[in-house]
């Protein structure tokens, strides 16, 4: 005998994530979920972003470092509220689950913020899979990772709205063909906004910061 069920395995997850989004929307806060390989430059991009516009965009940060508080410490000089979370048993150590994000949101002064940046665990696979209640995912990909990453990790690039191609200052030292990388990005998701950035030198950061401000302005309408 066959019994039809048709039930989403991650239903409980999705419900929690939806509740997070409702909480954020109720406070008028926009949330970015930054995903990318270990060391792609997520934290340094946040540092540059806050140098340029912390006073204006009123950010809060949720840091998903697995084992250390190093990233949170690097951001402390901006005086922005930061909640560090350790990945729990439900999610393993590979991504941030919505229940952890909920707890972190409750620790942030949402009334004072316009935007929350979630720096997800360094990994291009698992964080792509899970909606935690963010408004959009942004992939931070460094040029040192090779042209083929969009093809190998298509879900991350499908789920994202924008991609930061970071560390462009290193291009002269690499064999990477930037056009091929951009073509691969477009093959997976032609609708992505693409930013060529060096979080080290500051190249391209202004365009990214404008994009962030644009999202916040749109959210206020």
């Amino acid at each position: 005998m066959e019994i039809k069920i048709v039930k989403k395995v991650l239903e409980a997850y999705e419900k929690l994530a939806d509740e997070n989004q409702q909480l954020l929307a109720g406070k008028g806060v926009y949330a970015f979920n930054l995903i990318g390989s270990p060391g792609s430059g997520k934290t340094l991009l946040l540092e540059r972003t806050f140098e340029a516009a912390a006073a204006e965009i009123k950010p809060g940060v949720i840091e998903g470092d697995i084992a250390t508080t190093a990233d949170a410490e690097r951001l402390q000089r901006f005086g922005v509220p930061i909640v560090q979370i350790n990945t729990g048993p439900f999610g393993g150590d590979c991504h941030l689950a919505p229940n952890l994000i909920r707890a972190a949101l409750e620790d942030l002064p949402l009334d004072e913020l316009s935007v929350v940046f979630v720096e997800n665990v360094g990994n291009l696979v698992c964080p792509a899979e899970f909606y935690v209640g963010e408004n959009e995912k942004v992939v931070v990909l460094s040029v040192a990772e090779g042209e083929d990453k969009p093809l190998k990790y298509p879900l991350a690039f499908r789920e994202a709205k924008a991609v930061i191609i970071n560390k462009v200052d290193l291009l002269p030292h690499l064999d990477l063909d930037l056009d091929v990388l951009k073509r691969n990005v477009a093959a997976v998701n032609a609708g992505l906004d693409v930013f060529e950035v060096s979080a080290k030198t500051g190249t391209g950061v202004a365009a990214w910061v404008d994009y962030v401000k644009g999202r916040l302005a749109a959210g206020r309408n």
Partner: protein
Amino acid sequence: MHELPVVHSLVEQLRAEAERLGVDGKVAVVHLKLGALTTFVPEAMTFYFEVLTKGTDLESARLDVEEVPVAGTCRRCGEAITLEGLPFVCAACGSPDLEITSGRELVIDSLEVKDDGAG
């Protein structure tokens, strides 16, 4: 790499469903639909399923994973499309503006249950 917690929720849900339906201990096959775009690996899913159900009511149940292709419609020409691979463009008109409607599934589709032999 993140199949374990997912299979863990799957098994918990199955246990609740089987109990609700009064078929605990009788589930022979669990049919799971898995979208091709997800990052979950079928072999890892079945492996963890065996590990997590060992010594339980679901021990004799087998997990059958059916892959659901990435599919949708083209927003430009309206063509129904099924993607075999990259790039994500409409096979009819080449437009990348697609509405993807399947390929992200992780769904318990149905259960096959052993008959009692009584009826």
